[in-house]
């Protein structure tokens, strides 16, 4: 079953065209890794899927819903969870309250049940003992795991990760990639923008290389990392892997 489908998506900021006709289909249970140079449009692509940016052309389908249709765009949030580079936890709420907010306000689940579900989500990321802590009292890695729990609690079908580990101190990266690995093993459909090449190789079913707003090359990590066919891919991988 196709969970996400982009058809010839065009996206511009004023005069700057950032996505220049992107086509992509992600099947249920697939883990797709997105790589590319800074500014190539990786984040923009995820944000377009999650309806955080309007598009100027093309179509975006999520579980058969036309997200490019403004009337239906907001439905995307029922099926897609997103984890941001900067965590974006709500600083005035505890870890648990961050997780239960949408359960109560959007899904209208009552407080007791929401609490039970919130604790379960925190348990999945190994943080049930931090339920009462505020974001400022948590390490970066813990914050990001709460952000993952917040998205997971809504039981999304697809998870988007935009450089979920790159704002973390090197020592803390493992915590978060661990949780992501586990999610992948459980069969979650995932789109992951990352610079962690080890993770990409281990976990990705497919790697997509974006260059200047277009998908320049894609394939299984074993093939794409070792013998890329596009010279731009080669150049990019060389720079990333050999610095």
């Amino acid at each position: 079953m196709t969970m996400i489908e982009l058809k010839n998506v065009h996206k511009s900021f004023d005069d700057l065209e950032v996505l220049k006709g992107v086509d992509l289909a992600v099947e249920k249970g697939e883990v797709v890794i997105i790589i590319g140079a800074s500014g190539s449009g990786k984040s923009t692509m995820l944000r377009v899927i999650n309806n955080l940016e309007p598009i100027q052309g093309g179509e975006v389908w999520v579980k058969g819903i036309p997200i490019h249709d403004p009337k239906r765009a907001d439905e995307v949030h029922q099926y897609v969870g997103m984890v941001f580079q900067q965590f974006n936890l709500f600083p005035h709420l505890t870890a648990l309250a961050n997780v239960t907010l949408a359960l109560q306000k959007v899904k209208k689940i009552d407080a007791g049940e929401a609490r039970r579900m919130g604790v379960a989500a925190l348990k999945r990321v190994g943080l049930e003992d931090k339920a009462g802590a505020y974001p400022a009292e948590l390490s970066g890695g813990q914050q990001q795991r709460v952000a993952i729990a917040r998205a997971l609690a809504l039981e999304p079908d697809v998870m988007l990760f935009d450089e979920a580990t790159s704002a973390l101190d090197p020592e803390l990266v493992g915590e978060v990639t661990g949780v992501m690995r586990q999610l992948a093993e459980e069969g979650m459909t995932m789109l992951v923008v990352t610079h962690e090449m080890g993770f990409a190789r281990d976990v990705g079913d497919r790697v997509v290389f974006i260059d200047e707003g277009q998908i320049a090359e894609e394939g299984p990590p074993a093939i794409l990392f070792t013998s890329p066919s596009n010279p731009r891919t080669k150049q990019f991988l060389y720079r990333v892997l050999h610095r």
Partner: protein
Amino acid sequence: MGWQGIIDSSGILFTGFVNTLTLSIATIILGTALGLVVGVLRAARIPALRAPLRIYLEVFRGSPLLVQMLFIYFGAAYLGLRGVETFIAALVALTLYEGALISEIFRAGIEAVPRGQREAARSIGLSRFQIERYVILPQTFTIVLPPLVGQYIGLVKDTALATAIGYFELVREGQAIIDRIGMPIEVFVVIAAIYFVICYPMSLVARRLEKRALHA
């Protein structure tokens, strides 16, 4: 007669104090409510409201409060609005003026909340209203509180202008006393001291909040 005259006038001073306080508190409540609504609406960048709110803001921020007060007091009279007495006219003028300034405090507070917060809130499906109510406004609280208290100090002092349309607040009562017993220096010093006693503690609170906000 000397200072005795001022001590004998403590009743009239107290009336002035109560009147100043009444006008201040009423303005704080209404001005904050107005400022909050305007601030949120401006931060939301609703195209249809953009121009009217902007005009409101530019006019009330860009002209003297005294003129606004006279305008409303006399103007209301000739527009045939009944019952616009000095208190109401002063309250309306102060509310519109302080509301404009306070709306900018709220707007700045809302805009200081990182964009990512709004995006994260949308990502978990909150509605526009829910985003403001549960995510944005609670976070602006610590940001807006120090400048808000600062604005309230200005507001208390601004109520002195109601003197000009004949509201019996502290300054006007002071003039009434001088009218009877003379001694302008002494009387004005006493009035200034009363204002200081109201405002200085607020300054201290504002400063403490500011420090706390910086360290938070």
